[in-house]
């Protein structure tokens, strides 16, 4: 199944090249060149994973991650950064990021992370569906 990805980065040349490579790997890619635009697109659509740059104008990746997770705790977010520090990594994980990858990222490593994100999302959806069915059955006395 094709993965639905939202790629958020203020470097438009990076967005264009990375999204083309992801599309060549049969992913459905939406791009946003700011955290604000990314937040709007997350509200409007459904994604298996959000790939989020850490250093962006106005709102950085950590701040955007906080808002994304508040809005949608099940959203799978992979952070990208020029220089990953242990402090940033810990903060990102505490906020619920799936992983923190360093730029330049290896497309195969990123693809693996995206597949993990999609699998996690499917698991969450399945659990929620099971829970909903259980509730219906309990209500009906089945």
């Amino acid at each position, binding site marked *: 199944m094709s993965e639905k990805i939202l790629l958020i980065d203020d470097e438009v040349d990076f967005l264009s*090249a990375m999204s083309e490579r992801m599309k060549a790997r049969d992913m459905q890619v939406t791009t946003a060149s700011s955290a604000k635009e990314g937040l709007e697109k997350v509200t409007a659509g459904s994604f298996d994973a959000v790939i989020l740059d850490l*250093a962006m*104008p106005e709102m950085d990746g950590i701040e955007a991650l906080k808002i994304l997770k508040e809005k949608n705790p099940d959203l799978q977010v992979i952070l990208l950064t*020029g*220089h990953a520090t242990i402090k940033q990594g810990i903060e990102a994980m505490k906020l619920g990021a799936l992983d923190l990858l360093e730029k330049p990222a290896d497309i195969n490593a990123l693809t693996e992370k995206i597949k993990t994100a999609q699998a996690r999302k499917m698991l969450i959806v399945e659990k929620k569906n099971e829970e909903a069915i259980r509730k219906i059955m309990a209500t009906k006395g089945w």
Partner: protein
Amino acid sequence: MPWRQSKPMTVQYDSIGGSGLQFFGTVSASISHELKNVLAIINENAGLLEDLTFAARRGAPIDPDRLDRTVQNFTKQIHRADEILKNMNRFAHSVDQFESQVDLHDLVVLVANLAARKAAMGRISLETTAPAQPIHLTCNPFLLENLVWLCLELAIAATGSGRTLTLTPEKTASAIRLHIAGIDGLSETLAMRNAAGIEAILAALGAEMTTDPAGHTLTLSLA
């Protein structure tokens, strides 16, 4: 013509203590972040070529326009990295001489280039205005760069997103000044709060800083 006799270099560097080292570190970290972004774009474009080659080996036609766009992306990023490294090199060599004659506009352009990423993070643009005639002064170039950087930090912190800060060197019969205009939220309180690091360098350079909140301008009197 020398505008002021500088103090011995040890006195000058001692007077700013860790602040100068912090400035050097901050600029170096910013440069390394920018270069990482350049490398990331080059990496993705190299990957694109790899993908196109892989597809071509399996019989897919190669679009020359697509190849051309990729080559242009490489060239653009190489020029970008070259500019970053030229600025880095000039900045690193500014500690070579503890006193030298500097072209104020050139120095201001260099610091504005180094601070461009920091400004861009707040969606602020930096513009420099060239004087009609070159303005030269003799001073410690590193200290003056540090001073302009700290003033820009103050200006960026005070200014709202989407604004433009304009740096204008000026020479009159009696003075050499640098004006930083367009600082929206400038107040005496803000200037005082951020003045700690600036004061030591002002003293070392024998310069003065004045703020005009109503005119949204900060002025450094350098001679």
